[in-house]
Protein backbone atom coordinates (compact mmCIF):
# COMPACT_ATOMS: atom_id res chain seq x y z
CA UNK A 1 0.00 0.00 0.00
CA UNK A 2 1.36 3.36 -0.91
CA UNK A 3 0.29 6.45 0.93
CA UNK A 4 0.27 9.83 -0.72
CA UNK A 5 0.00 12.87 1.46
CA UNK A 6 -0.68 16.19 -0.17
CA UNK A 7 -0.34 16.68 -3.84
CA UNK A 8 3.40 16.90 -4.19
CA UNK A 9 4.93 13.56 -3.30
CA UNK A 10 4.24 11.60 -6.46
CA UNK A 11 6.84 9.19 -7.55
CA UNK A 12 6.57 10.37 -11.14
CA UNK A 13 8.39 13.68 -11.62
CA UNK A 14 5.54 15.89 -12.81
CA UNK A 15 5.68 19.55 -13.58
CA UNK A 16 4.16 20.88 -10.40
CA UNK A 17 1.05 22.42 -11.97
CA UNK A 18 -1.37 23.69 -9.38
CA UNK A 19 -4.59 22.11 -10.49
CA UNK A 20 -7.04 23.91 -8.26
CA UNK A 21 -10.11 22.17 -9.53
CA UNK A 22 -10.62 19.28 -7.15
CA UNK A 23 -12.34 17.18 -9.77
CA UNK A 24 -9.35 17.41 -12.05
CA UNK A 25 -7.06 16.55 -9.17
CA UNK A 26 -9.13 13.51 -8.40
CA UNK A 27 -9.06 12.36 -12.01
CA UNK A 28 -5.34 12.87 -12.18
CA UNK A 29 -4.65 11.01 -9.00
CA UNK A 30 -7.02 8.22 -9.98
CA UNK A 31 -5.39 7.75 -13.36
CA UNK A 32 -1.92 7.55 -11.91
CA UNK A 33 -2.23 4.01 -10.56
CA UNK A 34 -4.14 0.81 -11.15
CA UNK A 35 -6.04 0.83 -7.86
CA UNK A 36 -6.65 4.10 -6.00
CA UNK A 37 -8.56 4.55 -2.76
CA UNK A 38 -9.54 7.95 -1.44
CA UNK A 39 -9.63 7.51 2.31
CA UNK A 40 -9.69 9.14 5.73
CA UNK A 41 -7.20 7.98 8.29
CA UNK A 42 -9.82 8.00 11.05
CA UNK A 43 -12.55 6.29 9.03
CA UNK A 44 -13.17 2.64 9.86
CA UNK A 45 -15.06 1.89 6.68
CA UNK A 46 -11.97 3.01 4.78
CA UNK A 47 -10.05 0.46 6.81
CA UNK A 48 -12.56 -2.13 5.55
CA UNK A 49 -11.93 -1.11 1.94
CA UNK A 50 -8.18 -1.31 2.37
CA UNK A 51 -8.41 -4.72 4.07
CA UNK A 52 -10.59 -6.04 1.27
CA UNK A 53 -8.13 -5.17 -1.46
CA UNK A 54 -5.21 -6.49 0.55
CA UNK A 55 -7.03 -9.77 1.01
CA UNK A 56 -7.36 -9.98 -2.76
CA UNK A 57 -3.59 -9.62 -3.08
CA UNK A 58 -3.79 -6.13 -4.50
CA UNK A 59 -1.69 -3.12 -3.44
CA UNK A 60 -3.91 -0.08 -3.66
CA UNK A 61 -2.59 3.49 -3.58
CA UNK A 62 -4.30 5.38 -0.77
CA UNK A 63 -4.90 9.12 -0.59
CA UNK A 64 -5.75 10.23 2.96
CA UNK A 65 -7.75 13.34 2.27
CA UNK A 66 -7.80 14.40 5.92
CA UNK A 67 -4.09 14.95 5.59
CA UNK A 68 -4.46 16.99 2.40
CA UNK A 69 -4.50 20.78 2.77
CA UNK A 70 -7.39 20.95 0.36
CA UNK A 71 -9.10 17.85 1.65
CA UNK A 72 -12.41 19.65 2.11
CA UNK A 73 -12.69 20.38 -1.58
CA UNK A 74 -11.71 16.85 -2.46
CA UNK A 75 -14.32 15.54 -0.04
CA UNK A 76 -17.10 17.60 -1.59
CA UNK A 77 -16.05 16.63 -5.10
CA UNK A 78 -15.95 12.94 -4.24
CA UNK A 79 -19.42 13.13 -2.75
CA UNK A 80 -20.66 14.78 -5.93
CA UNK A 81 -18.96 12.17 -8.02
CA UNK A 82 -20.75 9.09 -6.74
CA UNK A 83 -23.62 10.58 -4.73
CA UNK A 84 -23.11 8.16 -1.86
CA UNK A 85 -23.60 8.55 1.86
CA UNK A 86 -19.96 9.38 2.60
CA UNK A 87 -17.14 10.87 0.53
CA UNK A 88 -14.75 8.14 1.61
CA UNK A 89 -13.88 5.48 0.88
CA UNK A 90 -14.04 5.98 -2.87
CA UNK A 91 -12.34 3.48 -5.15
CA UNK A 92 -10.97 3.86 -8.66
CA UNK A 93 -9.66 0.97 -10.72
CA UNK A 94 -7.77 1.59 -13.92
CA UNK A 95 -8.67 5.26 -13.64
CA UNK A 96 -12.38 4.47 -13.73
CA UNK A 97 -14.71 5.11 -10.81
CA UNK A 98 -15.97 1.99 -9.05
CA UNK A 99 -17.70 3.89 -6.29
CA UNK A 100 -18.23 3.82 -2.55
CA UNK A 101 -17.96 0.76 -0.32
CA UNK A 102 -21.37 -0.62 -1.25
CA UNK A 103 -20.55 -0.56 -4.97
CA UNK A 104 -17.23 -2.21 -4.26
CA UNK A 105 -18.92 -4.96 -2.24
CA UNK A 106 -21.61 -5.47 -4.86
CA UNK A 107 -19.08 -5.74 -7.66
CA UNK A 108 -17.00 -8.19 -5.65
CA UNK A 109 -20.05 -10.39 -5.04
CA UNK A 110 -21.11 -10.42 -8.67
CA UNK A 111 -17.59 -11.20 -9.79
CA UNK A 112 -16.88 -8.00 -11.71
CA UNK A 113 -14.33 -6.62 -9.25
CA UNK A 114 -11.76 -9.32 -9.93
CA UNK A 115 -12.29 -8.88 -13.66
CA UNK A 116 -11.69 -5.12 -13.41
CA UNK A 117 -8.58 -5.70 -11.36
CA UNK A 118 -7.19 -8.11 -13.93
CA UNK A 119 -7.95 -5.70 -16.77
CA UNK A 120 -6.16 -2.91 -14.93
CA UNK A 121 -3.18 -5.16 -14.42
CA UNK A 122 -3.48 -5.13 -10.64
CA UNK A 123 -4.08 -8.88 -10.47
CA UNK A 124 -2.56 -11.73 -12.35
CA UNK A 125 -3.92 -15.29 -12.50
Amino acid at each position, binding site marked *: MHYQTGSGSCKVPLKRSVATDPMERIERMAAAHAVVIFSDS*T*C*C*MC*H*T*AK*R*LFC*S*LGVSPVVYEIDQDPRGEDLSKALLRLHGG*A*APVPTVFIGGKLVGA*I*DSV*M*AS*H*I*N*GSLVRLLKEAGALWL
Partner: protein
Amino acid sequence: MASHRVGEPAALSDSGAPHHHHHHIPYAVPYMLHHPTNSNFINQEGPAFDFGELEEAIILQGVKINNDDKKQHLYTAIRPAATLDMFPSWPMRFHQHTTRGSSKSGEESTDSGSAVNTLSNTPESPSDHRQPPPPPPQMDAAGGIDSPRMSGSQSQPPAKPAPEKTLRRLAQNREAARKSRLRKKAYVQQLESSRIRLAQLEQDLQRARSQGLFLGGGGAASGSISSGGAIFDMEYSRWLDDDHRHISELRTALQAHLSDGDLRVIVDGYIAHYDEVFSLKGAAAKSDVFHLITGMWTTPAERCFLWMGGFRPSDLIKMLIPQLDPLTEQQFMGICSLQHSSQQAEEALSQGLDQLQQSLVDTIANGSVNDSMHHMAIALGKLANLEGFVRQADNLRQQTLHQLHRLLTIRQAARCFLVIGEYYGRLRALSSLWASRPRESMIAEDNSCQTTSDLQMVQASQNQFSNF
Protein backbone atom coordinates in the same frame (compact mmCIF):
# COMPACT_ATOMS: atom_id res chain seq x y z
CA MET B 1 -54.80 -43.27 -5.13
CA ALA B 2 -54.63 -46.05 -2.63
CA SER B 3 -52.63 -44.70 0.21
CA HIS B 4 -50.23 -47.41 1.16
CA ARG B 5 -49.90 -45.84 4.56
CA VAL B 6 -53.48 -46.58 5.42
CA GLY B 7 -53.34 -49.40 7.88
CA GLU B 8 -53.63 -52.45 5.74
CA PRO B 9 -56.79 -54.25 6.59
CA ALA B 10 -54.82 -57.08 8.04
CA ALA B 11 -53.08 -54.69 10.37
CA LEU B 12 -56.37 -53.32 11.56
CA SER B 13 -57.48 -56.63 12.83
CA ASP B 14 -54.33 -57.00 14.83
CA SER B 15 -54.42 -55.53 18.23
CA GLY B 16 -53.53 -52.17 17.29
CA ALA B 17 -50.40 -50.17 16.77
CA PRO B 18 -52.57 -47.11 16.71
CA HIS B 19 -49.48 -45.04 17.12
CA HIS B 20 -48.72 -45.56 13.45
CA HIS B 21 -50.89 -42.65 12.60
CA HIS B 22 -48.82 -40.20 14.57
CA HIS B 23 -46.27 -40.35 11.81
CA HIS B 24 -48.74 -39.00 9.38
CA ILE B 25 -49.78 -35.80 11.04
CA PRO B 26 -48.65 -33.18 8.58
CA TYR B 27 -47.32 -30.61 10.98
CA ALA B 28 -44.13 -28.95 9.91
CA VAL B 29 -42.17 -29.51 13.09
CA PRO B 30 -42.90 -33.15 13.76
CA TYR B 31 -42.27 -33.87 10.11
CA MET B 32 -38.82 -32.37 10.38
CA LEU B 33 -37.99 -34.29 13.47
CA HIS B 34 -39.11 -37.52 11.94
CA HIS B 35 -36.88 -37.05 8.96
CA PRO B 36 -33.72 -35.56 10.37
CA THR B 37 -31.53 -37.23 7.83
CA ASN B 38 -33.60 -36.26 4.89
CA SER B 39 -31.42 -33.84 3.02
CA ASN B 40 -34.27 -32.74 0.86
CA PHE B 41 -35.86 -29.95 2.78
CA ILE B 42 -38.84 -29.65 0.58
CA ASN B 43 -41.82 -30.80 2.56
CA GLN B 44 -43.86 -33.39 0.85
CA GLU B 45 -47.57 -33.04 0.84
CA GLY B 46 -48.96 -34.52 4.02
CA PRO B 47 -50.23 -38.03 3.43
CA ALA B 48 -53.87 -38.15 2.60
CA PHE B 49 -56.00 -40.53 4.50
CA ASP B 50 -58.37 -42.01 2.04
CA PHE B 51 -61.39 -43.23 3.87
CA GLY B 52 -63.19 -44.26 0.75
CA GLU B 53 -60.39 -46.64 -0.05
CA LEU B 54 -60.34 -47.94 3.48
CA GLU B 55 -63.99 -48.76 3.43
CA GLU B 56 -63.67 -50.59 0.17
CA ALA B 57 -60.85 -52.62 1.57
CA ILE B 58 -62.83 -53.49 4.64
CA ILE B 59 -65.87 -54.52 2.71
CA LEU B 60 -64.01 -56.51 0.14
CA GLN B 61 -61.76 -58.34 2.53
CA GLY B 62 -64.09 -58.81 5.43
CA VAL B 63 -62.08 -57.68 8.36
CA LYS B 64 -62.73 -59.73 11.45
CA ILE B 65 -63.23 -57.46 14.34
CA ASN B 66 -65.18 -58.92 17.10
CA ASN B 67 -64.25 -57.60 20.46
CA ASP B 68 -64.09 -54.35 22.31
CA ASP B 69 -60.35 -54.05 22.45
CA LYS B 70 -59.90 -54.29 18.77
CA LYS B 71 -62.70 -51.94 18.16
CA GLN B 72 -61.05 -49.46 20.47
CA HIS B 73 -57.84 -49.63 18.52
CA LEU B 74 -59.64 -49.36 15.27
CA TYR B 75 -61.28 -46.21 16.46
CA THR B 76 -58.01 -44.55 17.20
CA ALA B 77 -56.28 -45.96 14.17
CA ILE B 78 -58.78 -44.50 11.80
CA ARG B 79 -58.94 -41.13 13.45
CA PRO B 80 -55.44 -39.87 12.76
CA ALA B 81 -55.45 -37.22 15.42
CA ALA B 82 -57.38 -38.55 18.31
CA THR B 83 -56.73 -35.37 20.25
CA LEU B 84 -58.15 -33.17 17.54
CA ASP B 85 -61.79 -33.95 17.82
CA MET B 86 -63.00 -31.33 15.48
CA PHE B 87 -63.76 -32.65 12.07
CA PRO B 88 -67.43 -31.99 11.59
CA SER B 89 -67.47 -34.18 8.54
CA TRP B 90 -67.39 -37.15 10.83
CA PRO B 91 -70.99 -38.22 11.24
CA MET B 92 -72.48 -38.26 14.70
CA ARG B 93 -73.56 -41.81 13.96
CA PHE B 94 -70.00 -42.84 14.54
CA HIS B 95 -70.04 -41.66 18.13
CA GLN B 96 -73.38 -43.24 18.69
CA HIS B 97 -72.04 -46.52 17.49
CA THR B 98 -69.22 -46.56 19.90
CA THR B 99 -71.40 -45.78 22.87
CA ARG B 100 -74.20 -48.11 22.00
CA GLY B 101 -73.71 -51.77 21.33
CA SER B 102 -70.52 -51.85 23.27
CA SER B 103 -70.12 -55.46 22.61
CA LYS B 104 -70.96 -55.12 19.00
CA SER B 105 -68.24 -56.09 16.71
CA GLY B 106 -66.32 -53.76 14.47
CA GLU B 107 -68.02 -50.47 14.21
CA GLU B 108 -66.41 -48.97 11.25
CA SER B 109 -65.49 -45.47 10.29
CA THR B 110 -66.49 -43.30 7.36
CA ASP B 111 -69.48 -41.42 6.45
CA SER B 112 -71.68 -44.17 5.40
CA GLY B 113 -72.07 -47.52 6.93
CA SER B 114 -75.03 -48.19 4.80
CA ALA B 115 -72.94 -49.62 2.06
CA VAL B 116 -71.77 -52.13 4.55
CA ASN B 117 -75.32 -52.50 5.54
CA THR B 118 -76.33 -53.73 2.16
CA LEU B 119 -73.66 -56.32 2.11
CA SER B 120 -74.90 -57.85 5.26
CA ASN B 121 -76.04 -61.35 4.72
CA THR B 122 -76.95 -62.37 8.20
CA PRO B 123 -80.75 -62.30 8.43
CA GLU B 124 -80.71 -62.64 12.18
CA SER B 125 -78.92 -59.33 12.80
CA PRO B 126 -82.00 -57.09 12.80
CA SER B 127 -83.42 -59.02 15.64
CA ASP B 128 -80.17 -59.02 17.52
CA HIS B 129 -79.62 -55.35 17.77
CA ARG B 130 -80.77 -55.05 21.33
CA GLN B 131 -78.88 -57.94 22.78
CA PRO B 132 -75.25 -58.59 22.35
CA PRO B 133 -75.14 -61.37 19.85
CA PRO B 134 -72.71 -64.17 20.51
CA PRO B 135 -70.10 -63.16 18.05
CA PRO B 136 -69.23 -66.09 15.87
CA PRO B 137 -65.57 -65.88 14.92
CA GLN B 138 -66.31 -66.31 11.28
CA MET B 139 -68.87 -63.62 11.34
CA ASP B 140 -68.30 -61.00 8.80
CA ALA B 141 -67.58 -57.61 10.29
CA ALA B 142 -70.12 -56.34 7.87
CA GLY B 143 -72.68 -58.40 9.65
CA GLY B 144 -72.27 -56.59 12.93
CA ILE B 145 -72.04 -53.15 11.47
CA ASP B 146 -74.94 -50.89 11.52
CA SER B 147 -77.36 -53.51 12.54
CA PRO B 148 -79.09 -51.00 14.83
CA ARG B 149 -79.80 -49.01 11.78
CA MET B 150 -81.27 -51.95 10.06
CA SER B 151 -83.87 -52.23 12.72
CA GLY B 152 -85.21 -48.86 11.75
CA SER B 153 -85.78 -49.89 8.22
CA GLN B 154 -87.38 -53.22 8.62
CA SER B 155 -89.64 -52.62 5.71
CA GLN B 156 -86.78 -53.45 3.44
CA PRO B 157 -84.87 -56.51 4.54
CA PRO B 158 -82.02 -56.49 2.09
CA ALA B 159 -81.00 -59.92 1.17
CA LYS B 160 -78.38 -59.17 -1.47
CA PRO B 161 -76.79 -55.76 -2.17
CA ALA B 162 -77.41 -54.06 -5.47
CA PRO B 163 -73.95 -53.51 -6.89
CA GLU B 164 -74.83 -50.15 -8.36
CA LYS B 165 -76.00 -48.84 -5.02
CA THR B 166 -72.84 -50.03 -3.40
CA LEU B 167 -70.66 -48.39 -5.98
CA ARG B 168 -72.59 -45.17 -5.69
CA ARG B 169 -72.25 -45.15 -1.95
CA LEU B 170 -68.57 -45.89 -2.22
CA ALA B 171 -68.17 -42.99 -4.61
CA GLN B 172 -70.00 -40.74 -2.16
CA ASN B 173 -67.71 -41.91 0.57
CA ARG B 174 -64.69 -41.05 -1.49
CA GLU B 175 -66.07 -37.65 -2.19
CA ALA B 176 -66.77 -37.00 1.44
CA ALA B 177 -63.37 -38.27 2.39
CA ARG B 178 -61.79 -35.94 -0.11
CA LYS B 179 -63.67 -32.97 1.29
CA SER B 180 -62.69 -33.96 4.75
CA ARG B 181 -59.07 -34.10 3.69
CA LEU B 182 -59.22 -30.61 2.21
CA ARG B 183 -60.79 -29.20 5.32
CA LYS B 184 -58.14 -30.83 7.40
CA LYS B 185 -55.40 -29.36 5.23
CA ALA B 186 -56.84 -25.88 5.56
CA TYR B 187 -57.10 -26.27 9.30
CA VAL B 188 -53.52 -27.44 9.62
CA GLN B 189 -52.26 -24.50 7.58
CA GLN B 190 -54.12 -22.18 9.91
CA LEU B 191 -52.50 -23.94 12.83
CA GLU B 192 -49.05 -23.48 11.36
CA SER B 193 -49.42 -19.77 10.85
CA SER B 194 -50.89 -19.37 14.30
CA ARG B 195 -47.94 -21.23 15.69
CA ILE B 196 -45.56 -18.77 14.12
CA ARG B 197 -47.54 -15.87 15.42
CA LEU B 198 -47.51 -17.44 18.84
CA ALA B 199 -43.75 -17.78 18.71
CA GLN B 200 -43.42 -14.09 17.95
CA LEU B 201 -45.76 -13.19 20.76
CA GLU B 202 -43.82 -15.34 23.18
CA GLN B 203 -40.64 -13.66 22.14
CA ASP B 204 -42.12 -10.21 22.63
CA LEU B 205 -43.49 -11.27 25.97
CA GLN B 206 -40.14 -12.53 27.15
CA ARG B 207 -38.42 -9.42 26.02
CA ALA B 208 -40.99 -7.23 27.76
CA ARG B 209 -40.71 -9.35 30.87
CA SER B 210 -36.94 -9.15 31.01
CA GLN B 211 -37.00 -5.45 30.43
CA GLY B 212 -39.64 -5.04 33.07
CA LEU B 213 -37.33 -6.78 35.50
CA PHE B 214 -34.49 -4.55 34.46
CA LEU B 215 -36.59 -1.47 35.09
CA GLY B 216 -37.69 -2.72 38.47
CA GLY B 217 -34.25 -3.77 39.62
CA GLY B 218 -31.84 -1.26 38.15
CA GLY B 219 -34.04 1.76 38.00
CA ALA B 220 -32.11 2.80 34.94
CA ALA B 221 -33.53 5.36 32.61
CA SER B 222 -34.66 3.60 29.49
CA GLY B 223 -35.25 -0.12 29.64
CA SER B 224 -37.95 -0.30 27.06
CA ILE B 225 -37.57 -0.77 23.37
CA SER B 226 -37.10 2.48 21.54
CA SER B 227 -39.90 3.55 19.27
CA GLY B 228 -37.72 2.82 16.26
CA GLY B 229 -37.07 -0.67 17.53
CA ALA B 230 -40.72 -1.27 18.36
CA ILE B 231 -41.83 -0.10 14.94
CA PHE B 232 -39.32 -2.37 13.28
CA ASP B 233 -40.43 -5.33 15.38
CA MET B 234 -43.98 -4.79 14.27
CA GLU B 235 -43.02 -4.51 10.63
CA TYR B 236 -40.74 -7.50 10.91
CA SER B 237 -43.46 -9.67 12.38
CA ARG B 238 -45.66 -8.73 9.46
CA TRP B 239 -42.78 -9.59 7.16
CA LEU B 240 -42.55 -13.00 8.82
CA ASP B 241 -46.20 -13.67 8.09
CA ASP B 242 -45.56 -12.72 4.48
CA ASP B 243 -42.54 -14.98 4.45
CA HIS B 244 -44.64 -17.91 5.54
CA ARG B 245 -47.07 -17.20 2.75
CA HIS B 246 -44.31 -16.93 0.17
CA ILE B 247 -42.80 -20.21 1.31
CA SER B 248 -46.09 -22.04 0.96
CA GLU B 249 -46.50 -20.52 -2.47
CA LEU B 250 -43.03 -21.68 -3.50
CA ARG B 251 -43.69 -25.13 -2.20
CA THR B 252 -46.97 -25.61 -3.99
CA ALA B 253 -45.56 -24.08 -7.16
CA LEU B 254 -42.69 -26.57 -7.18
CA GLN B 255 -44.94 -29.51 -6.49
CA ALA B 256 -47.43 -28.44 -9.11
CA HIS B 257 -44.61 -28.32 -11.67
CA LEU B 258 -45.58 -24.92 -12.96
CA SER B 259 -44.02 -23.53 -16.10
CA ASP B 260 -40.77 -21.61 -15.86
CA GLY B 261 -42.56 -18.37 -16.58
CA ASP B 262 -44.95 -18.82 -13.68
CA LEU B 263 -42.15 -19.92 -11.39
CA ARG B 264 -40.16 -16.85 -12.32
CA VAL B 265 -42.94 -14.60 -11.15
CA ILE B 266 -43.03 -16.33 -7.80
CA VAL B 267 -39.26 -16.33 -7.39
CA ASP B 268 -39.02 -12.66 -8.31
CA GLY B 269 -41.69 -12.04 -5.73
CA TYR B 270 -39.61 -13.77 -3.10
CA ILE B 271 -36.52 -11.74 -3.98
CA ALA B 272 -38.58 -8.56 -3.72
CA HIS B 273 -39.82 -9.80 -0.35
CA TYR B 274 -36.23 -10.03 0.88
CA ASP B 275 -35.38 -6.65 -0.63
CA GLU B 276 -38.18 -5.33 1.50
CA VAL B 277 -36.76 -6.62 4.76
CA PHE B 278 -33.39 -5.09 3.96
CA SER B 279 -35.01 -1.75 3.36
CA LEU B 280 -36.90 -2.09 6.66
CA LYS B 281 -33.65 -2.86 8.41
CA GLY B 282 -32.03 0.13 6.75
CA ALA B 283 -34.64 2.43 8.24
CA ALA B 284 -34.31 0.73 11.61
CA ALA B 285 -30.52 1.14 11.54
CA LYS B 286 -31.02 4.88 11.31
CA SER B 287 -33.27 5.05 14.33
CA ASP B 288 -31.89 2.34 16.57
CA VAL B 289 -28.79 0.51 15.38
CA PHE B 290 -28.29 -1.22 18.74
CA HIS B 291 -31.64 -2.94 18.40
CA LEU B 292 -30.44 -4.49 15.15
CA ILE B 293 -26.87 -5.22 16.06
CA THR B 294 -27.73 -6.95 19.33
CA GLY B 295 -30.29 -9.06 17.51
CA MET B 296 -33.16 -8.24 19.82
CA TRP B 297 -35.47 -8.43 16.84
CA THR B 298 -34.61 -12.07 16.16
CA THR B 299 -35.28 -15.28 18.03
CA PRO B 300 -32.63 -16.65 20.41
CA ALA B 301 -31.49 -19.42 18.10
CA GLU B 302 -30.99 -16.98 15.24
CA ARG B 303 -29.22 -14.63 17.63
CA CYS B 304 -26.75 -17.41 18.30
CA PHE B 305 -25.51 -17.16 14.72
CA LEU B 306 -25.83 -13.40 14.43
CA TRP B 307 -23.21 -11.54 12.48
CA MET B 308 -23.42 -7.77 12.25
CA GLY B 309 -27.16 -7.61 12.76
CA GLY B 310 -28.21 -10.57 10.61
CA PHE B 311 -27.20 -13.84 9.02
CA ARG B 312 -23.69 -14.49 7.76
CA PRO B 313 -23.96 -14.89 3.96
CA SER B 314 -21.07 -17.33 3.60
CA ASP B 315 -22.64 -19.62 6.23
CA LEU B 316 -25.90 -19.56 4.33
CA ILE B 317 -24.17 -20.57 1.12
CA LYS B 318 -22.27 -23.31 2.91
CA MET B 319 -25.60 -24.69 4.10
CA LEU B 320 -27.12 -24.39 0.64
CA ILE B 321 -24.50 -26.11 -1.46
CA PRO B 322 -25.45 -29.70 -0.58
CA GLN B 323 -29.15 -28.82 -0.81
CA LEU B 324 -28.86 -27.49 -4.32
CA ASP B 325 -27.72 -30.71 -5.97
CA PRO B 326 -27.60 -31.30 -8.86
CA LEU B 327 -25.50 -28.40 -10.06
CA THR B 328 -23.54 -28.04 -13.25
CA GLU B 329 -19.79 -27.71 -12.97
CA GLN B 330 -20.04 -24.05 -13.87
CA GLN B 331 -22.74 -23.39 -11.31
CA PHE B 332 -20.80 -25.16 -8.62
CA MET B 333 -17.72 -23.08 -9.37
CA GLY B 334 -19.82 -19.94 -9.39
CA ILE B 335 -21.36 -20.69 -6.04
CA CYS B 336 -18.03 -21.62 -4.44
CA SER B 337 -16.59 -18.42 -5.77
CA LEU B 338 -19.57 -16.55 -4.32
CA GLN B 339 -18.93 -18.13 -0.95
CA HIS B 340 -15.27 -17.16 -1.15
CA SER B 341 -15.99 -13.55 -2.14
CA SER B 342 -18.56 -13.27 0.60
CA GLN B 343 -16.07 -14.52 3.15
CA GLN B 344 -13.53 -11.94 2.04
CA ALA B 345 -16.08 -9.16 2.25
CA GLU B 346 -17.28 -10.34 5.67
CA GLU B 347 -13.72 -10.48 6.92
CA ALA B 348 -13.04 -6.94 5.70
CA LEU B 349 -16.20 -5.63 7.36
CA SER B 350 -15.39 -7.44 10.60
CA GLN B 351 -11.94 -5.90 10.66
CA GLY B 352 -13.41 -2.47 10.06
CA LEU B 353 -15.84 -2.98 12.92
CA ASP B 354 -12.99 -4.16 15.16
CA GLN B 355 -11.13 -0.98 14.44
CA LEU B 356 -14.22 1.03 15.31
CA GLN B 357 -14.58 -0.78 18.62
CA GLN B 358 -10.92 -0.30 19.43
CA SER B 359 -11.18 3.39 18.65
CA LEU B 360 -14.28 3.67 20.85
CA VAL B 361 -12.53 1.92 23.72
CA ASP B 362 -9.61 4.33 23.43
CA THR B 363 -11.90 7.34 23.46
CA ILE B 364 -13.92 6.20 26.45
CA ALA B 365 -10.91 5.00 28.42
CA ASN B 366 -8.87 8.13 27.86
CA GLY B 367 -11.48 10.68 28.81
CA SER B 368 -10.21 12.73 31.71
CA VAL B 369 -12.52 14.22 34.30
CA ASN B 370 -12.18 17.67 32.83
CA ASP B 371 -12.59 16.55 29.29
CA SER B 372 -15.33 14.01 29.74
CA MET B 373 -18.06 15.74 27.78
CA HIS B 374 -15.73 16.33 24.91
CA HIS B 375 -14.72 12.70 24.85
CA MET B 376 -18.35 11.65 25.08
CA ALA B 377 -19.11 13.76 22.06
CA ILE B 378 -16.28 12.11 20.15
CA ALA B 379 -17.45 8.69 21.27
CA LEU B 380 -20.96 9.51 20.11
CA GLY B 381 -19.60 10.46 16.73
CA LYS B 382 -17.78 7.18 16.44
CA LEU B 383 -20.84 5.21 17.49
CA ALA B 384 -22.71 6.74 14.61
CA ASN B 385 -20.50 4.71 12.29
CA LEU B 386 -22.16 1.53 13.52
CA GLU B 387 -25.09 2.22 11.29
CA GLY B 388 -22.80 2.16 8.26
CA PHE B 389 -21.50 -1.28 9.15
CA VAL B 390 -24.92 -2.80 9.66
CA ARG B 391 -26.03 -1.28 6.38
CA GLN B 392 -23.04 -2.70 4.53
CA ALA B 393 -23.62 -6.10 6.09
CA ASP B 394 -27.24 -6.03 4.92
CA ASN B 395 -26.05 -4.88 1.52
CA LEU B 396 -23.77 -7.90 1.39
CA ARG B 397 -26.67 -10.20 2.29
CA GLN B 398 -28.86 -8.69 -0.37
CA GLN B 399 -26.18 -8.91 -3.06
CA THR B 400 -25.51 -12.53 -2.16
CA LEU B 401 -29.16 -13.48 -2.60
CA HIS B 402 -29.31 -11.67 -5.93
CA GLN B 403 -26.17 -13.40 -7.14
CA LEU B 404 -27.60 -16.78 -6.18
CA HIS B 405 -30.64 -15.94 -8.25
CA ARG B 406 -28.37 -15.14 -11.18
CA LEU B 407 -26.33 -18.31 -10.93
CA LEU B 408 -29.23 -20.77 -10.77
CA THR B 409 -31.93 -21.87 -13.18
CA ILE B 410 -35.40 -20.73 -12.27
CA ARG B 411 -36.38 -24.09 -10.85
CA GLN B 412 -33.15 -24.35 -8.87
CA ALA B 413 -33.66 -20.83 -7.60
CA ALA B 414 -37.18 -21.69 -6.45
CA ARG B 415 -35.87 -24.70 -4.55
CA CYS B 416 -33.01 -22.64 -3.18
CA PHE B 417 -35.30 -19.99 -1.72
CA LEU B 418 -37.64 -22.61 -0.40
CA VAL B 419 -34.72 -24.18 1.45
CA ILE B 420 -33.68 -20.80 2.83
CA GLY B 421 -37.17 -19.98 3.99
CA GLU B 422 -37.66 -23.36 5.61
CA TYR B 423 -34.25 -23.25 7.25
CA TYR B 424 -34.94 -19.98 9.06
CA GLY B 425 -38.46 -21.11 9.83
CA ARG B 426 -37.03 -24.10 11.63
CA LEU B 427 -34.54 -21.98 13.54
CA ARG B 428 -37.40 -19.81 14.71
CA ALA B 429 -39.51 -22.83 15.64
CA LEU B 430 -36.53 -24.22 17.54
CA SER B 431 -36.36 -21.02 19.53
CA SER B 432 -39.96 -21.12 20.54
CA LEU B 433 -39.77 -24.78 21.49
CA TRP B 434 -36.73 -24.08 23.56
CA ALA B 435 -38.47 -21.20 25.27
CA SER B 436 -41.45 -23.31 26.19
CA ARG B 437 -39.61 -26.37 27.40
CA PRO B 438 -40.37 -27.40 31.01
CA ARG B 439 -37.82 -26.09 33.43
CA GLU B 440 -36.89 -27.48 36.82
CA SER B 441 -36.92 -24.07 38.49
CA MET B 442 -40.61 -23.77 37.81
CA ILE B 443 -41.38 -26.87 39.85
CA ALA B 444 -41.90 -26.65 43.62
CA GLU B 445 -38.70 -27.00 45.55
CA ASP B 446 -40.26 -28.88 48.42
CA ASN B 447 -38.30 -32.09 48.73
CA SER B 448 -41.19 -34.08 50.00
CA CYS B 449 -42.95 -33.52 46.74
CA GLN B 450 -39.93 -34.49 44.75
CA THR B 451 -41.50 -37.53 43.18
CA THR B 452 -44.65 -35.75 42.21
CA SER B 453 -42.60 -32.91 40.80
CA ASP B 454 -40.57 -35.33 38.76
CA LEU B 455 -43.75 -36.94 37.54
CA GLN B 456 -45.16 -33.58 36.64
CA MET B 457 -42.02 -32.74 34.76
CA VAL B 458 -42.04 -35.99 32.88
CA GLN B 459 -45.69 -35.59 32.09
CA ALA B 460 -45.20 -32.03 30.99
CA SER B 461 -42.37 -32.98 28.70
CA GLN B 462 -44.43 -35.83 27.32
CA ASN B 463 -47.27 -33.51 26.58
CA GLN B 464 -44.83 -31.09 25.08
CA PHE B 465 -43.33 -33.60 22.76
CA SER B 466 -46.28 -35.92 22.21
CA ASN B 467 -46.51 -34.74 18.66
CA PHE B 468 -43.05 -36.03 17.97
